[in-house]
């Protein structure tokens, strides 16, 4: 009897695929663990992504609603005309940003491990 039967190769392939998927997911940018909310150019709030909550951020046009749920964050509601930051949807990776320019509100995902850079120096 051979040590490996045809089905075994299929199982091994599936296992390798699963492992590769896990690696791909891990390399696909680090997941953020905190959220930085700015309003009117100032830091409005720095909070964790682990606690589900909805935050009301006041701006010149009205109140933007920032929602944190399941380790992700989004702008759920914004009084701006184009709704660009709302349409961006959920953010979870370090460095992802949603800007609600008319209402001067922005959210940015931060992580503990600094990922990449935000400026270059020679």
């Amino acid at each position, binding site marked *: 009897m051979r040590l490996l*039967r045809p089905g075994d190769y299929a199982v091994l392939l599936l296992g390798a695929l699963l492992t590769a998927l896990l690696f791909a997911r891990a390399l696909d940018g680090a997941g953020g663990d905190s959220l930085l909310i700015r309003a009117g150019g100032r830091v409005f709030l720095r909070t964790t992504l682990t606690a589900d909550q909805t935050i009301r951020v006041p701006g010149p046009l009205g109140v933007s609603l920032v929602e944190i749920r399941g380790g992700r964050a989004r702008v759920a509601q914004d009084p701006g005309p184009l709704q660009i930051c709302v349409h961006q949807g959920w953010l979870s990776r370090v460095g992802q940003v949603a800007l609600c320019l008319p209402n001067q509100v922005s959210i940015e995902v931060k992580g503990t491990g600094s990922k990449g850079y935000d400026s270059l120096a020679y």
Partner: protein
Amino acid sequence: MTRSPIEPLVLPVTAEDRRIAHLALLALGLTLLDAAIPSPLPGVKPGFANIVVLLALLRYGWRVAAWVSLVRVLAGSLLLGTFLAPGFWLALSGALSSLAVLAVVRKLPQRWFGPVSLSVPAALAHIAGQLALAGAWLLPGAGVLGLAPVFALAALAGGTVNGLVVAHLVAHPAAGAQSAHEPA
């Protein structure tokens, strides 16, 4: 001398009990070997004891395999001094998840699927169970799941090696190994 009014308690020992005890002892030895091997990352281990669990599964069925696996976890934790410590719960959670998966994958047709098809899913289930427990209870929010790919790779390698060993032992039951499986 006054006779005790209580009948002496006699627990009958069946052949299966002896079989489980023998196999669990074998698995226990391999558990100690596992623990003695230095590991770069806590939790990444070859899992040699599962060779015995798989042999028990193939020869005597799932019930015996489950007994062997759980007795091994319990006795191993007593010998290593980790009983009721986090390591014990991790081992238990891993053992239970891999037993659950084994109950399913053993239904695969044996003509096409050999021992490797048992050991690889069981190894992956083992680390999945451990990571789930570690992530949910022991180290919540510590990014344990970020290590999942490394553990999965280790499980894939360990599961393949152990499966091949089992396949070899099933194909060539050596005289020495035989005596351990069939206690007099």
